[in-house]
């Protein structure tokens, strides 16, 4: 009790590192020296200073901040800065859209070759790795002995957009597209996406295919 009181006084007098060591002594981590631990006192005062006691100056200072924002934003609305529509960063969503980063993970889609068939060979890896258990596949065989999914359903009401299916797929057959619209439905039955709804042509997905090749390429291992 007594020692604590002394320590408090000390810290009031000088707030260098040394004094903070003394007050912290019982709570120091033993094996770490103080110059490595680098504690930093953030509390300047335990009592209100006179400046803080007066309400008005700080209120005025706060109002200056908000008024500055107000004026700059008003100017930004009327005279937009170069290359932007307005100085604030809000995007008027349905009319304008964000430029999505390359990494963006939208709804999973199946890649369709140019002849209209899917790349998928129904190996079932995506079905296995999916943490939400939203993919179900039934494999079949074409006349040319090529395996393909006769039945590929993705339950969008379960999908968590984790991207594992894309990561494990050995054929680049399932990809996370950049589509994020129109996924909400009033009926859960509509959210069971059959194969036809999932297929997207190769050309549209070329960018994503390149990106996936890049990020999972050998140089990263």
């Amino acid at each position: 009790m007594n020692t604590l009181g002394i320590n408090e006084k000390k810290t009031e007098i000088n707030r260098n590192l040394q004094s903070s060591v003394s007050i912290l002594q019982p709570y120091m981590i033993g094996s770490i020296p103080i110059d490595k631990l680098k504690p930093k006192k953030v509390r300047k005062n335990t009592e209100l200073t006179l400046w803080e006691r007066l309400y008005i100056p700080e209120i005025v200072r706060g109002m200056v901040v908000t008024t500055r924002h107000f004026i700059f934003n008003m100017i930004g609305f009327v005279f937009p800065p170069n290359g932007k529509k307005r100085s604030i960063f809000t995007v008027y969503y349905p009319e304008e859209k964000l430029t999505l980063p390359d990494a963006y993970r939208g709804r999973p889609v199946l890649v369709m070759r140019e002849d209209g068939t899917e790349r998928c060979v129904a190996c079932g890896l995506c079905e296995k790795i999916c943490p939400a258990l939203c993919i179900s596949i039934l494999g079949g065989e074409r006349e040319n002995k090529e395996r393909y999914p006769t039945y590929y359903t993705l339950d969008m009401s379960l999908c968590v957009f984790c991207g594992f299916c894309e990561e494990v797929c050995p054929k680049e057959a399932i990809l996370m597209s950049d589509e994020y619209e129109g996924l909400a439905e009033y009926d859960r039955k509509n959210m069971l996406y059959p194969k036809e709804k999932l297929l997207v042509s190769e050309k549209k997905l070329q960018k994503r295919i390149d990106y996936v090749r890049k990020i999972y390429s050998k140089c990263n291992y």
Partner: protein
Amino acid sequence: MELSITLKKLKERFHNSIIDIHSFRGDDTAIVKKEDILRITKFLRDDEELLYNFMMDLTAVDYLGREPRFEVVYHLYSLKYNKRVRIKAPVPEQDCTIDSIISIWIAADWFEREAYDLYGIIFKGHPNLKRILLYEGFKGYPLRKDYPVRKRQPLIGPEN
């Protein structure tokens, strides 16, 4: 293998209560008898060379098919010596109780309630041992290995 100071001291002091010690991947672990858990934790907290003042975590593990079936796991941390230790106390299924350590670390309050809630282990001496994450009226203990993943609970609520 060189024993750390915590395990050495524990072994010296409580050689009758210690069932096993090991330090897998550098985590000091002591498996102790559940009857002595209060004495051991008190010693760990108060001993000058140990001072495990933090109770970081308390949980239980269900080893279904092994005897004793449950293990209550305590993770302690010593601020002064910057060390961690894990204390495990096996609890058999027939006598699914262990002493509450709430008198030693108040932090154990909710953790013990949680372990009771999810594993059904009764902490003797806990002042307010009731379900915490689940609701009153939940049937069974969901983290036990014999609780099916897809099990459904009966609907509860006020009856009209």
